[in-house]
């Protein structure tokens, strides 16, 4: 599909944003940043699961090595880390739910003839995003109060 650089095209300056294009979002609105955050939380959760499985391997070393490890995890720094994992999970789950619905074209509305000033389907249905974010904040506060403090 890609047009190969030949002749004069080989003198063209490449200008693809690459990975920077995921993180750098210019002057876009909330959904574009949720896209970045969804990837970040996904990668964070993947890292957590990998570490979690690796740490569970300490069980093989007997009770003593396991309890030594657990005493390290009891430190306040790790508690903050665990809380961040829980918040990342809440965000990833709820935003993932929104994305699954919208990927199937639900909650986005029907096509409309464009009338200036144009309002796209994402902006028309922005309240869904605000409700989702409010839910995430409420659940994050609940987890903080119930399990951390």
């Amino acid at each position, binding site marked *: *599909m890609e047009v190969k650089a030949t002749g004069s095209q080989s003198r063209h300056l*490449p200008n693809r944003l690459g990975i920077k*294009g995921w993180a750098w979002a210019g002057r876009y609105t909330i959904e574009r940043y949720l896209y970045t955050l969804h990837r970040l939380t996904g990668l964070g959760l993947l890292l957590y699961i990998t570490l979690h499985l690796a740490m569970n391997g300490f069980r093989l070393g007997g009770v003593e090595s396991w309890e030594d490890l657990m005493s390290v995890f009891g430190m306040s720094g790790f508690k903050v880390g665990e809380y961040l994992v829980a918040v990342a999970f809440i965000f990833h789950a709820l935003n993932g739910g929104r994305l699954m619905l919208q990927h199937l074209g*639900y909650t986005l509305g029907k096509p409309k003839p464009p009338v200036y000033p*144009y309002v796209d389907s994402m902006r028309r249905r922005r309240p869904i995003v605000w409700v989702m974010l409010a839910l995430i904040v409420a659940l994050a506060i609940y987890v903080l109060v119930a399990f951390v403090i």
Partner: protein
Amino acid sequence: MQELTLKVQRYLPGKDKKSYIQEFTIPLRQGMTVLDGLIYIKENMDNTLSFRSSCRMGICGSCGMLINNFPMLACHTPVEELGTDRIEVRSLPNFPIIRDLVADLDSLFEKHKSIKPYVVSSDTEEAEEPTAEFLQSGQELEGYVQFAYCVKCGLCMAACPTVATDALFLGPQPLGQAYRYCTDRRDAGVEERFHQADSRHGVWLCHLAGACSEACPKGVDPALAIQLLKRAMIFDSLRLRKKKKPASIAQPLAESRPKIAVPEFTVK
């Protein structure tokens, strides 16, 4: 007199190894667009400045550029709307730079062509020797007319974070147009377009950042078209998609009535 500083990306193939920013300070007029500013520079300060433009009224889609970190049509962007007297203008990202602000849009047009952006007729005889129009209702037209306003400016492709990392990803413009033709009742090319969109670099790589719809200067909303295309493809694979009835051909016009004779002049 108020002044405007335009920071313009420059690149001369064969001479420059990488692009650089050149500053121009120009007089600011009321109602001035970014394109007006660039034309002022070309006419009065540096005639080597290269950019693409044509209609100057947001119809041709030639002057897509990255203006203050957002893909926009330069002719459609009044300086006042940006709320600053320092504007940075760069070539559209995700497309190679030919020279200065001129992006190479070949990849966009190749991808666009690949989804067959035209009505594929099942009635080849009628398509080759048309006898009348294919009929469609106003409701059917409303299902796709929004997507038919695309001017192929490439702003959505410049805004898309997936195009930024995957050069082979079809992207919002071609996929949006694939849906536009798939919903058209006169069209019989749905299977071919679904096959093209259902590839490794096709519709499933869209993760709904919504940036394409936000950047679109014509209100086309490619993000909506892509999600509706996904739904249609999933329903199709589950055999739940309603098959379109082929559009019928308009009946021949009723016999025309004889023209009413022009009355005689009352004043001679």
